[in-house]
């Protein structure tokens, strides 16, 4: 089949070895010239950021993994349309934000389906027993303070509104500028600033005991 032949040819095109690493722009050009290897490098260069943003948006690894992977699939299929008006990273982040947004909606629906009330006692064969919440305060295995803090912060992030979470992640974890953020999120800088403000205040409430 001609199609598979083309694919084979594409794979043969290698990225020439060299000392310095390639820029995104160079890799994109190589990819558009037919190098699959260039795409792989692009993925390797950005996977960590992509995965982590998705994880921080969604709060669980399974969905984060799906979203990050799908984002790169989209990159692969749309790279020829990428005009370079923004940086590749901005473009990638925008894809992730959109995918994560959709995924988040799905997750919410899923959660609502599964929601179980704590007031509804679990019924066992030998009678009734109230659902127990494990008391984690005195759990010796979790003595690692920093890990605990990390989890608390992640938990707090999960509790704030998704659009607030997005701005916090992009601003304070990824360290992006307002301009980049407005490109990624598709809203005005003013909106982003006020969201950021509210987000920090919300987090402050949720993290009170750590402050």
């Amino acid at each position, binding site marked *: 089949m001609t199609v598979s032949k083309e694919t084979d040819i594409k794979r043969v095109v290698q990225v020439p070895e060299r000392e310095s690493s390639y820029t995104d722009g160079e890799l994109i050009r190589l990819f558009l010239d037919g190098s699959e290897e260039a795409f792989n490098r692009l993925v390797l260069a950005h996977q960590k950021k992509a995965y982590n943003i998705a994880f921080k948006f969604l709060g669980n690894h399974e969905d984060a993994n799906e979203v990050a992977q799908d984002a790169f699939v989209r990159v692969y*299929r749309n790279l020829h349309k990428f005009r370079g008006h923004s940086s590749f990273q901005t473009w990638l982040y925008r894809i992730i934000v959109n995918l994560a947004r959709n995924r988040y909606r799905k997750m919410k629906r899923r959660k609502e389906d599964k929601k179980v009330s704590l007031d509804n006692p679990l019924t066992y064969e030998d009678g009734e027993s109230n659902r127990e919440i494990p008391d984690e305060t005195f759990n010796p295995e979790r003595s690692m303070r920093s890990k605990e803090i*990390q989890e608390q912060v992640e938990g707090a992030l999960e509790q704030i509104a998704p659009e607030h979470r997005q701005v916090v992640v992009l601003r304070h974890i990824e360290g992006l500028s307002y301009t980049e953020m407005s490109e990624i999120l598709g809203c005005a800088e003013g909106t982003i600033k006020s969201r950021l403000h509210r987000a*920090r205040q919300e987090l402050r409430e949720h993290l009170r005991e750590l*402050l």
Partner: protein
Amino acid sequence: MSCKEFEPLLQGYLEGELSNEEREMVEKHIEDCKACRKELDELKRVVELVSSLEEAPVPRDFLQEVRAKVEERQAIWQRIRVIWARPLRLGHSFGILAITVVFLGFFVWMNVRELVTKHDDQLSREDKQRPVTIALDREETEEEIGEGYMYKDKTARFKDHDGSLEEGTVDTVRIAKSEEERFLDNSIALEKSGRKTGSEAAQEKEVFSRQSHRGRDEEAVTTTDVITDGKELTETQTEIQSRDVIAKDKGVKEEGGYTNDGYSNIVIANGKKATSPSVGKGILTAKEEDKEKDSQPGASADEDTAGESVLKERDELEDTAKLGAAADSGMGAAAKVAEKPIPKETRIYVPIENYTEDLKRVNEIIKREKGTVAYSAKDSRVKEDEKYQPIIVRVDEKYFNSLYKNLSTYNRKTQKNTAQFQKKLAVTSPQTITVIIVIEDSAK
């Protein structure tokens, strides 16, 4: 300055975007104001906590999985090659194409329904799009994988299994075989299966070419013509009738104008699948059609419009149903057809000339024919991209036929012959509104 007024400045301070003067003001204020100092410290700490979050490690086979997904996705687009004409326009500059694409078996059908009912707003953004069915090419058959839209530049969009919007270029589009070719294929297949002799096939071919010729001339070719042509109806001759309708479509298309009549192609496409209750849209298979004709020669086909085969068949079904009900056991075949259940869901594409006016009239028809609108875009002031969302109508089975007939003929009958309307349709195509009729169980 009150603390409240300081609030925005605190934020700016935190972001490090204040002028020297402002910064000094803030610093001076927090020296004196305990509350503001506390707030600022806490906010700083929040930022610190958030930004010190550790990065999660990427799953080890991340790249491999991405590659696997890429390949899977590519494979779909590489295999999409059968583009089947649906509402079709042969523009002067575009020699051909308009398109129907295709999809996969039954399980996808659910997605398709979801796509059409729920996500049409997302899909119908562009003006010159054309609804298509997307199918994979598989040897001699097509495997439907989705329904969506295709644009002039051959990019197509459809919903895939997990509901995400797919977009790709259908670069391996192959124009569906000509009607004649398809007809001959069919004859050969039938011949192989031993259901007729070579001379019969030759005769059919002749009939076919005569009909397609007539079709090209855009003359009124009615099914009755065919019936009178044949002395006694056979299964294969019934097939000729349906081909005939297609031939007529073809004729219209070759005139270079857009018509909404390309839908009869769907009839054929669906006819193939009519055995599956989920996709059958009340289309009769050749065999059933045959029985029908046997039972009521000449009773059908008062239509002279090219491409109204859907309607025609529906009319026939209706008539037959009446006949079947009136005449009892004496007309076994007709009675049999009458038993054929009306499909649970039927789609009609109503050509639209003036959105507000037509929508109003369509709604009037629905109301008059005892249908209940279950879903439609709110009013005529809806945004451009929401305008052509499908209307979902519920109706009791007993009113179905009349509702169907009225909707199917709307705008086609009244305006089809005015050159102006045809021209307009050609310019503004595909201005159609999809009406999905869902049969309501009368038992409820």
